[in-house]
C-alpha cells in the first residue's frame, strides 16, 4: 500500500490521465456509446467511448475477456457493435475497408510467395504499375530492415523476420489506421523487444495511427502514446492514460517497471470491485498479491513481462 502510494508519487507526470485538450482537431476514430453482446453472454462491451487522434499510438490493455479484441474487430468492421457508433474521419464504419488494416498474431504470409512477392501481391489491388509495385515493396522491406531477404521464402525466415515481413506488407498498403491484435504474442521475449524498438522507430517515422491490442502491461507502456486500460464483465474503459516517456523507450527502464506496477494495481482493484459486485455471496478474497489469488485475478492473468507482483 505504501509502495503503491510511493510509486504513484514518483510516477507523477509520467502517466497522466489523457486529456482531449492536448490534441487538436476532430478525432480520427470516434467510438461513441458502443455496446457489444455475444449471443446471451455477458456484455463484451458496455457503453464504451474512445477517441483516437491522427498519428496516435493507442494501446488497448486488459486481461483476456475484457473486450479489447472485440473493440478492435469492431474498428476493423468485421464484427459490428450491437449498439452505438464508430466513426472514422466522421464516417460511420460499416464494414472492412482499405483505410484500416488488421494484423494478427500470426504473420500469415503466403508461403508460396517470396518476401518481395508477398508485398507486391498485396499491392496488386492498387493502381500501380509493376515497377512502382516493386519499388514500393523494396522500400518497405528496407524499412523493416530485411534488405537482402527479398527472394527468401517465408519458411526460410525466423518468426521475428516473418512478423517484420507481415508488418512491411501491412505498411506498404499505407492504411490510415493500423489495427494490431497482439501481433507479437507468439514471439520470444528477445525478438519481441527487437520488434518493439523497430515498431517505435517506424511509428516515429511514418506517424501512423495505430490501435494495438495487448495483455502485456510493459508492452503497452513501451509502445503506446496512450494506454487505454480496460476491464471485463462488462467490458469497459478503466483508465485512459498518456505515457510521457521519451522514445525510443528502453525495456529495462526502471520507470517502465514502476508505471506497470501502478497499472497492475489499478487492474487488481477493478477486479476486486467486479467480483464483489457480480458475486456478492462470495467470500472476501485476499487482497494481498499472493500467488494463489494471483492465479485467479485478471490482473495476474496479464503477462507480467517478467515483473511479478512480488518484485
Amino acid at each position, binding site marked *: 500500500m505504501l509502495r503503491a502510494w510511493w510509486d504513484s508519487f514518483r510516477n507523477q507526470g509520467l502517466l497522466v490521465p489523457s486529456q482531449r485538450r492536448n490534441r487538436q482537431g476532430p478525432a480520427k476514430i470516434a467510438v461513441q456509446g458502443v455496446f457489444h453482446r455475444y449471443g446471451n453472454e455477458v456484455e463484451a462491451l458496455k457503453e464504451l467511448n474512445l477517441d483516437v487522434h491522427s498519428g496516435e499510438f493507442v494501446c488497448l490493455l486488459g486481461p483476456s475477456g475484457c473486450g479489447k479484441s472485440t473493440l478492435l474487430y469492431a474498428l476493423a468492421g468485421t464484427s459490428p457493435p450491437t449498439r452505438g457508433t464508430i466513426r472514422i474521419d466522421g464516417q460511420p464504419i460499416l464494414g472492412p475497408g482499405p483505410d484500416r488494416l488488421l494484423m494478427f498474431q500470426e504473420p500469415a504470409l503466403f508461403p508460396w510467395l517470396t518476401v518481395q512477392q508477398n508485398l507486391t501481391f498485396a499491392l*496488386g489491388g492498387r493502381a500501380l504499375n509493376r515497377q512502382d509495385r516493386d519499388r514500393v515493396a523494396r522500400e518497405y522491406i528496407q524499412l523493416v530492415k530485411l534488405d537482402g531477404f527479398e527472394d527468401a521464402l517465408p519458411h526460410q525466415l525466423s518468426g521475428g523476420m516473418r512478423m517484420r515481413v507481415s508488418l512491411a506488407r501491412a505498411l506498404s498498403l499505407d492504411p490510415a489506421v493500423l489495427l494490431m491484435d497482439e501481433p507479437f504474442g507468439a514471439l520470444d521475449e528477445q525478438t519481441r523487444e527487437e520488434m518493439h524498438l523497430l515498431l517505435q522507430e517506424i511509428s516515429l517515422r511514418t506517424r501512423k495511427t495505430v490501435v494495438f491490442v495487448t495483455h502485456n502491461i510493459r508492452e503497452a507502456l513501451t509502445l503506446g502514446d496512450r494506454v487505454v486500460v480496460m476491464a471485463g464483465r462488462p467490458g469497459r474503459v478503466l483508465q485512459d492514460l498518456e505515457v510521457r516517456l521519451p522514445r525510443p523507450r528502453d525495456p529495462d527502464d526502471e520507470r517502465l517497471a514502476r508505471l506497470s506496477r501502478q497499472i497492475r494495481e489499478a487492474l487488481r482493484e477493478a477486479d476486486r470491485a467486479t467480483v464483489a459486485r457480480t458475486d456478492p455471496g462470495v467470500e472476501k478474497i485476499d487482497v494481498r498479491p499472493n500467488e494463489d489469488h494471483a492465479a485467479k485475478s485478471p490482473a495476474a492473468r496479464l503477462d507480467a513481462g517478467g515483473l511479478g507482483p512480488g518484485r
Partner: protein
Amino acid sequence: MLAGWALAASSGLWPPQLLPPPWAVAESLWTMGADGRLGSAIWASLKRLLSGYCLSVAIGVPIGLGIARFRVLSRLIKPVVVSLQALPSICWLPLAVLWFGLSESAIIFMVVMGSVLSVAISTEDGVQSIQPQLLQVAGTLGIRGLRFVAGVLIPGAMPGIVTGLKLGWSFAWRALMAGELLYASGGLGQLLAAGRQALDPAQVIAVMGAIITVGVLMDRALFRTLEHGVRRRWGLQLST
C-alpha cells in the same frame, strides 16, 4: 524372381504355350518394338490419356473449388461426387457407347469419368486445408474476386491439387486400359487383347510389362517432381 520364372517355365510343369519363358517375352517385346506396333500403341494410348486427363483437370479443379467455397454446391454436388466415386470407371463404358457410339469420344468420356471425381475431391480437400488466417488476411488486404481465386485459393490448395492430379492420372490410366482392352482400336489395351486372340502369352506379358513401365515412368517423371517442387516451395515437410 526372374530366375524363378525361367526355372518354372523350363521345368515343363506348365506347357510353354501358357507360361512362356522370360526370353520369349523379351523377344516378343523386341519384335513389337522393331515393327513399330509397340511405339504406335503407346503413342495412341498416351494421346487419349492426355486429352481425357486435361479435360478432367479442367472440369475437376473448378468443381472442387466450388464445392469447397459454396455451401449450396457442397450440399448439391458433393454427395453425387462421393457416391459416383464408388462406381468403377469401366461401368461407364456401356453408357459411353450408347451416347457416343464406338468412337474416340466414348473412350475419352470414360477416362474423364474415371479421374475427374478424384481430382475434384482432392481439390476440395486442398482448399479446406488452407490455413484460415491466410483467407482472413487476404480479406483484410483487400484481395478479392479473381485475384483471390488465382492468387490465394488455387496456390493455397496446390498441395491438395497436386495429390488430386496424381490420383487422377493413375485412375485415368486404368480407365483407359480397361476401355481399350474391351473395344478400342489402337493403343496398348488393344495390343494386349490382340495377344490373347493370337494365343500368344509372350505378347500378353510383354504388353503388360510395357503398360507397367509407362505408368510408373509417368508417375515418377511427372508427379514426383511436381509434388517435390510444390512441397519444397510451400515449405512443407517432404514425405519421403
